[in-house]
């Protein structure tokens, strides 16, 4: 009998009442690796690919260092093959009825359910994460994601009429990630009819397993293809013809920053330390641990941070029951970090928490927003009013009140600032993989010749250009900044010619300093405009519409000077008035409340302005495009810096005269000048929250490249013209989606 062997052990445990190991068998994960002879390739088009003459990297148990399998590294042609498979299956998949795709996703959810033990043991084995995290959270959520998106697919024809799938999606995953991050992105993509190629870092078997499960459903094998390879293949994937979008996922959550009000500092730290003391760490496959390990690299990163913090005089509290050796690292609470120390600026690594005190809620908000990141945050307070005030003020994609880390497929999750501007889950997650029907498929245009260093750098000199023949009265001269017309910093002007080539007039030549001034003015106006009630915003837009109507005859004659027929010019003014009214009316219908399974209480889905939005208007439709872009931006609470049409900026300047009297100063700023130069200044400005560019393909390429500096969301047309006079393209929901960001505010309730 087993008992005699364990008798003395039982005595000991009876006295100490310690916890014992609860090992989860990972035999099935090993058996699955054995089916591939411990040699993993890529999963493309429903079958395993193991091309020859490729290097391979070992997949190791992060805790024991034991070699579990070897993983092939893809090369360019493997990526091309996977994209080809995705392109081929796209035709079939995207044309299926939504209800049919819904069924397929449901089948995949069931497939995952049937093999969940394999999935969770494999994931825990290779990542070292605690099994309870994977088993109790990730795997059920993966199934919910599939089911939620199956429902979305089912109602697609009805709910998403006017939108079509983008096409082949490339997804690039970072070295440390959990397979759930992949699910958040592939589920909406597949649901709306896109097909996916996922590039996973070497030695990540779980995505391959998910792809195999999807492939074994039989039909549509090529909709999900997974290849493993180095990060250097990312650009290769992005530049494959046919790849319409590349989604990139950052590393999974790191450590945390904790702001504690001084009045409750001692009490909170005491409770925190008591709770940390009860955390158990250990091998991820142990069913009774709270924390696993994330490999030697994560351990070293944490170790370095702690040493650095200690050397700067910080207090470090470590507790919990942890195996003493690498790669395990105890949960650590760091306090008294001097505000100016490099550690305060650096990202906190897992599993560290840096606590710092604050005096007032206002100060807490300022500190919390003083970071380039904007993913998620939680507010803990018994004062609901104050908690809500903070939650609204936090520049984050997700805010939880008195809770942390809740997720649901129906709630859009995203971020702002450098945490990225894409969305997963909810309706917003679907739009990431859709485009308005009929939009031309612009193939990625990448010019090798574009010199990023010199694009738009120099401003051509402008000289007196003959007698002015403009209409009188001429609009006021200058840049419209801060609510009034100002002389440009460069003190020079550019001639505007009419359709006959005659000089129409001069407009100010704006430059870097003027852009700086305009952005500053826009920032100053922002709090006031955000604070306006939707009704007040709508009223102002309508007042502007009325002013435009009064100015109709001037505007029409200005347009006529530029070769627009009288009838067309009248229609353009009339349509511009309609656009302002329409967006004014839409202001009122923003935000909604979601109800989430398992959560008592609502999740508020708020529409928040992006901040300062810079818009480079197209050359065509000088008035209509200007108004069509301005109206949604203002309606959603943004403040704006606009560059009007280069050839015909005068109608926009006419509108500025009305804005000067109607709108608060700084709300709208219009800078004329050399478009390339102004585009350069805007794209390289770090304190602009979004940039829309309608111009040349080269300009679009530059904007995308330069805006990567602060990861601001950009919207470029890649040189493709837009039908501004059509409602779908000139006033469609796409503009609204681009002009605002969603914030999910979780309000768990209970008494």
């Amino acid at each position: 009998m087993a008992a005699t062997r364990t008798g003395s052990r039982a005595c000991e445990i009876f006295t100490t009442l310690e916890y014992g190991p609860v090992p989860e068998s990972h035999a099935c994960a090993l058996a699955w690796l054995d089916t591939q002879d411990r040699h993993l390739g890529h999963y493309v088009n429903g079958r395993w690919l193991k091309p020859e003459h490729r290097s391979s990297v070992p997949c190791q148990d992060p805790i024991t260092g034991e070699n579990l399998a070897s993983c092939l590294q893809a090369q360019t042609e493997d990526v091309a093959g996977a994209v080809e498979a995705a392109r081929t299956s796209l035709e079939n998949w995207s044309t299926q009825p939504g209800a049919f795709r819904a069924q397929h996703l449901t089948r995949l959810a069931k497939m995952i359910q049937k093999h969940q033990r394999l999935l969770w043991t494999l994931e825990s084995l290779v990542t070292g994460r605690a099994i309870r995290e994977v088993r109790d959270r990730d795997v059920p959520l993966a199934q919910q994601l599939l089911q939620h998106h199956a429902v979305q697919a089912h109602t697609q024809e009805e709910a998403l009429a006017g939108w079509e799938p983008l096409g082949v999606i490339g997804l690039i995953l970072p070295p440390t990630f959990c397979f759930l991050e992949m699910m958040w992105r592939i589920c909406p993509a597949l649901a709306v009819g896109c097909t996916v190629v996922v590039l996973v870092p070497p030695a990540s078997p779980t995505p391959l397993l998910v792809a195999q499960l999807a492939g074994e459903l039989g039909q549509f094998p090529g909709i999900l293809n997974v290849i493993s390879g180095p990060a250097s293949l990312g650009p290769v994937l992005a530049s494959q013809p046919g790849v319409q979008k590349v989604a990139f996922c950052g590393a999974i959550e790191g450590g945390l920053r904790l702001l504690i009000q001084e009045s409750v500092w001692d009490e909170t730290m005491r409770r925190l330390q008591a709770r940390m003391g009860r955390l158990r760490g250990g091998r991820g496959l142990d069913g009774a641990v709270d924390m696993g390990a994330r490999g030697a690299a994560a351990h070293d990163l944490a170790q370095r941070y702690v040493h650095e913090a200690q050397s700067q005089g910080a207090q470090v509290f470590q507790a919990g029951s942890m195996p003493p050796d690498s790669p395990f690292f105890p949960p650590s609470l760091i306090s008294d970090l001097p505000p100016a120390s490099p550690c305060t600026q650096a990202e906190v690594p897992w599993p560290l928490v840096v606590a710092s005190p604050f005096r007032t809620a206002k100060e807490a908000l300022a500190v919390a927003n003083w970071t380039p990141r904007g993913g998620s945050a939680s507010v803990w307070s018994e004062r609901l009013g104050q908690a809500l005030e903070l939650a609204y003020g936090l520049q984050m994609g997700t805010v939880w009140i008195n809770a942390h880390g809740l997720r649901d497929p129906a709630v859009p999750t995203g971020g702002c600032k450098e945490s990225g501007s894409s969305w997963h889950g909810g309706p917003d997650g679907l739009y990431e993989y859709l485009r308005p029907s009929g939009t031309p498929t612009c193939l990625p245009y990448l010019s090798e010749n574009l010199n990023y260093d010199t694009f738009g750098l120099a401003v051509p000199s402008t000289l007196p250009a003959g007698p002015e023949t403009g209409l009188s009265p001429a609009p006021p001269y200058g840049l419209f900044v801060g609510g009034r017309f100002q002389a440009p910093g460069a003190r020079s002007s550019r001639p505007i010619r009419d359709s006959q080539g005659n000089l129409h007039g001069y407009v100010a030549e704006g430059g870097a300093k003027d852009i700086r001034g305009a952005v500053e003015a826009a920032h100053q106006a922002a709090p006031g405009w955000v604070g306006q009630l939707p009704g007040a915003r709508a009223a102002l837009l309508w007042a502007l519409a009325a002013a435009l109507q009064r100015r109709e005859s001037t505007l029409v004659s200005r347009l006529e000077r530029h070769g627009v027929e009288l009838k067309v010019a009248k229609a353009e003014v009339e349509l511009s008035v309609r656009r302002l009214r329409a967006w004014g009316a839409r202001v009122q219908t923003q935000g909604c409340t979601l109800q989430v399974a398992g959560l008592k209480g609502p999740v508020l889905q708020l529409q928040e302005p992006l901040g300062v939005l810079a818009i480079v208007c197209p050359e065509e439709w000088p008035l209509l495009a200007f108004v069509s872009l301005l109206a949604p931006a203002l309606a959603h609470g943004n403040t704006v810096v606009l560059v009007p049409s280069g050839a015909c900026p005068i109608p926009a300047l006419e509108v500025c005269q009305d804005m000067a009297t109607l709108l608060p100063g700084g709300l709208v700023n219009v800078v004329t000048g050399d478009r390339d130069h102004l585009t350069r200044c805007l794209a390289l400005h770090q304190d602009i929250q979004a940039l829309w560019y309608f111009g040349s393909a080269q300009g679009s390429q530059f904007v995308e490249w330069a805006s990567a500096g602060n990861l601001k969301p950009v919207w470029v047309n890649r040189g493709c013209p837009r039908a501004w006079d059509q409602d779908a393209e000139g006033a469609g929901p796409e503009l609204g989606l681009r002009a605002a960001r969603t914030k999910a505010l979780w309000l768990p309730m209970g008494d």
Partner: protein
Amino acid sequence: MSAHQRGTELDLSWISKIQVNQPAVLRRAEQIQARRPVKKEWQAAWLLKAVTFIDLTTLSGDDTSSNIQRLCYKAKYPIREDLLKALNMHDKGITTAAVCVYPARVCDAVKALKAAGCDIPVASVATGFPAGQTHLKTRLEEIRLAVEDGASEIDVVINRTLVLTGQWEGSDFIKTSTGKETVNATFPVAIVMLRAIRDFFWKTGNKVGFKPAGGIRSAKDSLAWLSLIKEELGDEWLKPELFRIGASTLLTDIERQIYHHVTGRYAAYHDLPMS
């Protein structure tokens, strides 16, 4: 039970300041049950420990001296001797923490335990159990009589009329409920009570005991309760002076689990002595 509380000034502001984040409590309750499984020899040892926390209870209208006697015998020999021997635990004096009966049966219990030759305390519910809606005078008299009969622990039903009108009482031990309610010992409620015990300890240094009662029937439940105490209050609360489980059928299931651990087979009911 432990020495009586030294007592402390009643400060009602402590109570009015208490705030409960119910969704968080519910999540915590779920976590503790999911994250602290105990298996193999740890499970056996923990279950034997759980036995020592049990207030083996019979609170039926038809209790007589014969079933009280059987209960007391079971309290003294909660696990079959050969099973304990196999675990080398037969000489640890494992008994339940107490037997718990109605006041009128205290005499029977004291006599039976004396006959069995053991010093397991007799606990009596009192004061108009389970509603507590009798006069203070009769309730006090009930306690006095039970103590006279030999009860060394009294489970008092507090006057809930006073509680609901904000007039609180203090105690050495707090119990989740009488065990006779429709909902009795639940994890979320227990977490709130345990946090209150912890706060009181932090403020005054006094340790108040805790007794969940009602609905704890399976060995698995009892393990979860032990983890809960360990997680929320720490090992120092895991002793009969500060932690009891009020239960009647729990012991049978624990014995069955021990049987399985020792023999590798599941026991039929008749394999184990009746309680």
